[in-house]
């Protein structure tokens, strides 16, 4: 195949992945929607009764089926997106994360991969709607900053591009999973406080307890934070020393990377501080993710600075 063929293939694959991911989001929303009137112990009842309806009219079954479709579509979207990102790299003859469009695609792929892996390990399919919804938005928004595949600007001619940006992609995707878990933690722990036992119906009561969700959130953040430290505070400064003659220069992107780091450091401390555990810590995690997203979108498009590789 020629470079143009690869570029074409990449565009089709990314567009298809966006569509498939949007359908996965719809399926996950349906999973929650179908189960909105179901009590949490309902599954045991249907599983135990011999003549349980198998026609698909049962809300639990419909919910489960929608969840299964959501997971399958998410897997398919990840595979198609992998083809898109890989062929983009082949078309440009370099790592496929050299500008904003490519970062958006590669980071979404990483987030979907992280999600699919964690679904197998910790059964976190309950964050599915948030991950697929956010991923669809990121892929769609990336299309608005699309640039044709091509070689890199001179500033990016360095193997640190592979290390520094890959670190940002991995930690960013884990931050997304952590933020999704933190949102559900806030919703679930609030519901646990305010909902009387007899009114606990809906999908929210079919997902793990808020304590379990909090644990998932913590573990994901504890994984992401050291990688972010490496990407933003070690690999970045080393490269900056080679490229710009200073390891730290308060460039807007550096400022916001530092802010993200500080907020997540605050999150890890808050979890060990009386009065900050739980709700306040989860809100800090969400603020941390918001600063990460602002650094990607806001600083790239509106603030500028030396890290402006959007186009």
């Amino acid at each position, binding site marked *: 195949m020629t470079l143009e063929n690869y*570029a074409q293939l990449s565009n089709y694959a990314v567009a298809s992945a966006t569509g498939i991911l949007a359908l996965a989001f719809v399926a996950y929303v349906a999973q929650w929607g179908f189960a909105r009137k179901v009590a949490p112990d309902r599954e045991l009842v249907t599983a135990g009764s011999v003549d349980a309806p198998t026609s698909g009219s049962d809300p639990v079954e419909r919910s489960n089926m929608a969840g299964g479709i959501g997971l399958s579509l998410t897997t398919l979207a990840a595979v198609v997106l992998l083809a898109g990102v890989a062929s983009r790299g082949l078309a440009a003859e370099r790592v496929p994360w050299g500008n904003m469009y490519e970062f958006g695609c590669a980071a979404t792929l990483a987030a979907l991969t992280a999600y699919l892996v964690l679904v197998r390990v910790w059964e976190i399919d309950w964050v599915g709607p948030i991950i697929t919804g956010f991923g669809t938005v990121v892929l769609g928004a990336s299309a608005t900053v699309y640039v044709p595949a091509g070689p890199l600007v001179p500033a990016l001619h*360095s193997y640190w591009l592979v290390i520094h940006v890959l670190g940002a992609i991995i930690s960013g995707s884990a931050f997304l999973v952590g933020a999704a878990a933190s949102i559900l933690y806030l919703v679930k722990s609030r519901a646990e406080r305010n909902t009387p036992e007899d009114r606990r119906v809906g999908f929210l009561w079919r997902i793990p307890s808020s304590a379990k969700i909090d644990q998932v959130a913590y573990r994901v953040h504890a994984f992401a934070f050291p990688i972010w430290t490496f990407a933003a505070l*070690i690999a970045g400064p080393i490269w900056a020393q080679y490229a710009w*003659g*200073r*390891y730290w*220069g308060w*460039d807007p992107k550096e400022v916001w990377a*530092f802010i993200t780091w500080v*907020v997540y450091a605050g999150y890890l401390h808050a979890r060990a501080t009386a009065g900050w555990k739980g709700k306040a810590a989860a809100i800090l995690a969400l603020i941390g993710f918001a600063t990460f997203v602002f650094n990607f979108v806001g600083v790239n498009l509106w603030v500028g600075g030396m890290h402006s590789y959007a186009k």
Partner: protein
Amino acid sequence: MSSNAVPALGRRELTRWFWRQLTSMRTALLLLLLLAIAAVPGSLYPQRGVDARAVETYFLEHPKSAPVLDNLGMFAVYSSPWFSAVYLLLMVSLIGCILPRSFVYLRAVRARPPRAPRNFARLPASASFETDASTADVVAAARRALGRSRIDVVDRDVDGETVREVSAEKGFLREAGNLLFHVSIVVVLIGVAVGTLFGYRGSVIVTDDGGQFANSLPQYDEFSSGTLFDSSELPPFAFTLDQVTARFQPFGSPQAGAPREFRAQGTYTAKPGDADRPFDITVNHPLSIGSTSVYLLGQGYAPVFKITDAQGNVVFNDAVPFLPADATYTSNGIIKVPDAEPEQLGFQGFFLPTAVTQGGKELSTSAHPAAANPLVGLNVWHGDLGLDEGRSQSVFILDKSKMQQYKNGAQAFRVSLQPGMSADLPDGGTIEFTELRQFARFQIGSSPLVKVPLFGIVAGLIGLMTSLTIKPRRTWIRTRRDGSRTVVDVAVLDRVPRDDLPADLDEFLERFKDALGDTEEKTV
């Protein structure tokens, strides 16, 4: 309520109270978040240390608000008193946290595992089972199952019965990692401070018509150095720039106009009297001369102008850097001609590397950053350039307060030139665009001890990962004979609460019973 309900605090108590507040976790957390918030304005307003020219532009565009913001330190956030106050307080709080915790840790490392609590059921996870093995076998099996823990075995007499208690503790490295991480942050901050105090950094624009640079203070366009840096210690190197190469993605290809290569070539001497050596600087490959490095930060076009005044004297003949304003290298520049007679002249205008006509109007936009159809457009002022007031003036800003613009009827008088062309000026002089050169913007700097923050942060990362992955755990096992059977009670406690403790306990019990089974097989 009596008036002396709250006893007045003495100075010592007050100091102690203040110290305790400052070093508390909650204060540290608030200071951390305050630091994040305090860093925000520095990304929204231009910073002197980052882009001094952008600050000047901001002052011109916002003459009312800029001085107010300046007084608040908004153009030098990271060296402002309030930002410094936050991070210094944070550092004091950090040290105030590290020191006592280090002493506690040193004691804990030497200490024996704590004695078993009386009531195991109150602990987060506990279990008990019976076995035929003797208490000695149980203790031996426990030691094997506990692995690399610190273990104490105590015999105690409870109501006339002998009870053997095993206390085990592991995961001491967690706190060590935690302390290492926090000490590393202090090391990084000290390393950064030393580098800033003794380092210097400056930038300079050099044109490639054989433009020269000698490393001394007046040669820099921008220069900043640490308070302990002595500018007479600038290493005495010099260089001559012969060629700037800029390649762009060709017109009509994908990503047309995207930069592909920037290169600056010339010769340098490390110190006066040394032989000339060639250099070749590209973006990620600086030139190192001793402890100083020269980086290529940017480049652009520098048209060469030859200007004669009304008397016919050549009053200007030089390359003038035009600063690129966008990706197509539409550039802005000014020419100051203080020697022109009878009045000083000032030119302000634009440069287009690939000028194209749009809708039959004048050539007004650049289609590509490569110089395929170069064009300059200049407006002309005459009067007093304001150079004699002793105030230093940027070479990129034309002070028009004492100058009048030449007009052509109602419209501004403008000269449009391509290389080799010349034009007459209203006062009788001429301006000629003799040739097109390029300029390079270099950053030159040195920051001593650059490796200290690097090693600091790497050590910090190792400490961080240690503290995030190691589980500090206490395990207690109590065993006693009950008739012909041996009763074994087990309890575990994590210093960091985790809710997977019951599962972990089950796993431990399995290992424990396996070990016990092995013991029984041997003794039978």
